[in-house]
């Protein structure tokens, strides 16, 4: 009879499955989340307010998407000094996103109000 062998195999499979993180996570008691490995954020938000970029110098990892949102009552633009990115005129509430794939330092400013400057440092 193969029932015992099948049973053993079944037990082995269940044991193997039992070690998988996914299964462990789904059996975790309520209120306790399984903790994934810590990763840097892939998306960062910068507010533009009172004619200033909310974070003047920002460090991000390559592959991060930065989204600027204009909170002022006048439009602003986001223009890279090295012509890597250039937003349209952003009215109040309008966002502009750019994904920084390459490492480097990317200085930018508002072409309407050139005293507004900022930079993104990508590592």
């Amino acid at each position, binding site marked *: 009879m193969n029932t015992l062998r099948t049973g053993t195999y079944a037990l082995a499979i269940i044991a193997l499955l039992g070690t998988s993180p996914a299964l462990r996570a789904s059996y975790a008691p309520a209120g306790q989340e399984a903790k994934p490995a810590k990763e840097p954020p892939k998306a960062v938000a910068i507010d533009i307010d009172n004619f200033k970029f909310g974070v003047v110098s920002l460090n991000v990892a390559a592959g991060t998407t930065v989204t600027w949102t204009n909170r002022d*009552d006048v439009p602003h633009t986001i223009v890279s000094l090295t012509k890597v990115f250039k937003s349209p005129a952003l009215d109040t509430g309008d966002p502009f996103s750019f994904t920084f794939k390459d490492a480097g330092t990317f200085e930018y400013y508002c072409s*309407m109000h*050139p*005293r507004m400057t900022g930079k993104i440092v990508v590592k």
Partner: protein
Amino acid sequence: MADSIIHPDDDGVDRRGFLRCMAWAGTGMAWIAGAGILKSAPLPRLGQAADSSLAKGDFVFAQLSDSHIGFAKDANKDVVSTLQAAIGRIQSLPVAPDFLIHTGDLTHLSKPEEFDTLQQVLLSARVGQVFYVPGEHDVLADDGRQYLERYGKGTKGSGWFSFDHKGVHFIGLVNVVNLKAGGLGNLGAEQLEWLEKDLKSRASSTPIVVFAHIPLWSVYPDWGWGTDDSAQALRYLKRFGSVTVMNGHIHQTLQKIEGHVTFHTAASTAFPQPAPGAAPSPGPMTVPAAQLGSLLGLTDVTFVRRSHALAIVDHTLA
């Protein structure tokens, strides 16, 4: 309503000149400049401004600025109405202006419908000829191509030009394109070269009026209220006996006299902005509705040939 006058006159002001200034003013303060010193004298109410007929060769022109068609936030939900009120004020001046100048920020976002609306408002009010220089809000999206399509005829580069009217030389400059990071307004080498050539053949006795959007003097650099290379332009203008610089951009009236040069900024017809440093930033300033009109306005300028003088009067909409 509040009116104020500047009357630069190299000869100083004698009693007859003073009375002439008083006749122009209507209500409010008269600012009289003699040899670069500004004196003020409060005036009694004169009812109708007196001298409504000018001598031959004298004329009036008016300045509108910062109409920001397309703006509809708290500071003013109806910029077309306030523009129309400003035009109405022009039409009630005792002497009709020969033409208007608009010192920029015609629109808020350089949108075609915004330019169209401004054109319609000015046409239907039959204001006559208007000369324009762009503001930074007029050259978005396409580096000013749309502005030039509409207002570039007869201009050079990004829209600068000059013309003569009854012996006065008018110069429209553009200081809102190719702005450098960290900088202020910018005229650029090409425009400065043109300006030098434009002025070369002029007699120093020719009265000059220069207009541009951003102030050509350092009002408040922290807020971008100045022009990086205006000193060069002012050097070309130094030899002239009467120079009047008219700007907008800061949405409030300010004046300064330096030797033979009178600097003046106009109020906006759309919304006020705070006094330098009086707020965290130079954005639109919201005031109680009843107060708005007193912070918006236009400017009229009278040229009087026999004294080479220009009388600048600011009118509010209140």
